[in-house]
């Protein structure tokens, strides 16, 4: 087993407290670099570590930080994305509840490296207890001299503000998230300009996921090489996989990237519940195309992995579906989600998601017509790559995959004018 990078403390009693964190190497990395190591050197370290963003897109964290013009006269900001809205995803919750100081330390070191003096954590509104725990941890960090003015006597100042969302998936998109922090409706902004140039309050801004930032203390403490030694060449480090659905032991597991999908399901998670047959796996959150059992046969969980069925690592949210479930029904439920969460700013997404849901609901209810599968694909095609924010793609991808891979199920619904399940 590889060394735990992110979950080394979660089993400890009171792991969420400053005391336990400090007793277990906590805030040592910060003391090692703050005021002692040049910010640029830290950015280079993170680049070298190979750490990639864990929010879904896998963009190299150090490279993202490097986009910030360090000489910009504008105020710079960092926002930690704790929106955790992608269905199937529940990993950041664990990090925030069981090791909030690891995240806070990651935010402080990152902010120092980027030249930020005001940082935010954007946490989804439904996480009440989680926000309370974070709030308490932030208060402890202020008291302990890790936040606020003149941190640990280094002359570096950082304010950290916890901002609660209020029930909106699209606010997980980095530009909508900024709108929401600024007190607006969560309507995504057109890119460019990218947040690194014009972000929060018009200043250069870095947005990183909770899991990404939680890995920073380890990299600083053990070195970039120790981190990149874990995982594969293009996917360094460990990843939290959150497995849900029809397995015996659903939960969050920290595994080196490159870990085999089959082993995750059948060994780590104890296999299929009640010995049922696997029908499909949504590998990286609801937006990622579903995979058939034979498509996961030799699949390694890494960003660069490719299968003919189109693999995406996404947020690491693995949803395991057994053979009792109707795929038209699952597609309809996903479509309902995207139709509900579309912000409505652009026509292809607003109309496309609503229409897709209506058609799928109709097929599931027995009112399917010949040509419906083609129509569904056509609508997705009109959405894919043609919307303002990536939600349009996120809505289209899973529907395309389900219609194409389970075409016979659609035909059966239409032919029999009912759901055969």
């Amino acid at each position, binding site marked *: 087993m590889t060394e735990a990078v992110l979950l080394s403390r979660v089993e400890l009693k009171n792991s969420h407290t400053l005391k336990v964190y400090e007793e277990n190497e906590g805030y040592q990395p910060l003391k090692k670099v703050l005021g002692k190591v040049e910010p640029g050197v830290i950015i280079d370290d993170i680049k070298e570590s190979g750490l990639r963003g864990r929010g879904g897109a896998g963009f190299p964290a150090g490279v993202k930080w490097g986009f910030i013009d360090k000489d910009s006269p504008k*105020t710079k900001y960092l926002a930690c994305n704790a929106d955790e809205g992608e269905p199937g*995803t529940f990993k950041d*919750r664990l990090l925030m509840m069981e090791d909030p100081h690891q995240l806070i330390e990651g935010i402080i070191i990152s902010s120092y490296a980027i030249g930020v003096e005001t940082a935010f954590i954007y946490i989804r509104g*439904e996480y009440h207890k989680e926000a309370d725990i974070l709030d308490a941890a932030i208060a402890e960090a202020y008291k302990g001299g890790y936040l606020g003015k003149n941190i640990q006597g280094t002359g570096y100042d950082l304010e950290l503000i916890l901002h609660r*969302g209020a*029930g909106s998936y699209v606010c997980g998109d980095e530009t909508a998230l900024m709108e929401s922090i600024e*007190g607006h409706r969560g309507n995504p902004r057109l890119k460019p300009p990218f947040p690194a140039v014009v972000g929060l309050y018009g200043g250069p801004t870095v947005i990183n996921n909770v899991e990404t930032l939680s890995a920073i203390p380890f990299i600083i403490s053990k070195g970039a090489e120790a981190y990149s030694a874990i995982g594969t060449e293009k996917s360094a480090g460990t990843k939290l996989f*959150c497995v849900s659905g029809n397995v015996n032991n659903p939960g969050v597991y920290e595994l080196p990237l490159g870990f085999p999908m089959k082993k995750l399901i059948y060994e780590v998670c104890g296999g299929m519940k009640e010995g049922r047959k696997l029908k499909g796996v949504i590998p990286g959150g609801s937006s990622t195309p579903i995979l058939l059992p034979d498509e996961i046969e030799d699949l390694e969980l890494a960003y660069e992995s490719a299968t003919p069925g189109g693999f995406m690592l996404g947020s690491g949210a693995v949803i395991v579906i057994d053979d009792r479930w109707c795929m038209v029904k699952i597609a309809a*439920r996903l479509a309902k989600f995207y139709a509900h969460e579309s912000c409505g700013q652009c026509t292809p997404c607003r109309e496309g998601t609503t229409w897709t849901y209506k058609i799928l609901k109709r097929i599931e209810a027995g009112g399917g017509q010949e040509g419906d599968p083609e129509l569904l694909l056509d609508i997705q095609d009109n959405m894919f790559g043609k919307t303002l924010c990536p939600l349009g793609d996120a809505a289209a991808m899973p529907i395309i995959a389900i219609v194409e891979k389970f075409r016979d199920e659609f035909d059966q619904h239409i032919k029999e004018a009912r759901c055969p399940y």
Partner: protein
Amino acid sequence: MGNLSDSSIKEIKKIAEKYPTTESALLPALYIAQREKGWLAKETMDDIADVLELPKVRVYGVATFYTMYYKKPMGKYVIQVCTNVSCMITGGEEIYEHLIKVFGIKSGETTGDGLFSLLEVECLGNCGNAPVMQINEDFYENLTIKVVDEIIAKLKK
């Protein structure tokens, strides 16, 4: 004014100072008001607009965008049942349909005695414990219909 309490107004003003701009305090302000009043009436939102010196339509616009701000009175217990995929394939939909029957209301409605509001919601970010629901601020996990019945019976007492 006179609708929002002085302590809420004070809290909102204090939070606004933390942010780079006053209007950033709008989401927290709506939560503070909702905590005091249970929901956001037009007059309540108007008070917020006054405190933060924002146009009233700005406040309405934000309140209507986010689902967690209630635009009508809610029951004492707001039950949010997740029916997204991980919960659906572990029994979440049956639980939601069961509650519809038990309460005789649809999503978004409140029982006649004002005790329960039912909401069908999207993924609550707790799929490892599916099926889940939230009652007010608490998660209830690994649900079965029997467990749900017990929870409801307890709340009725």
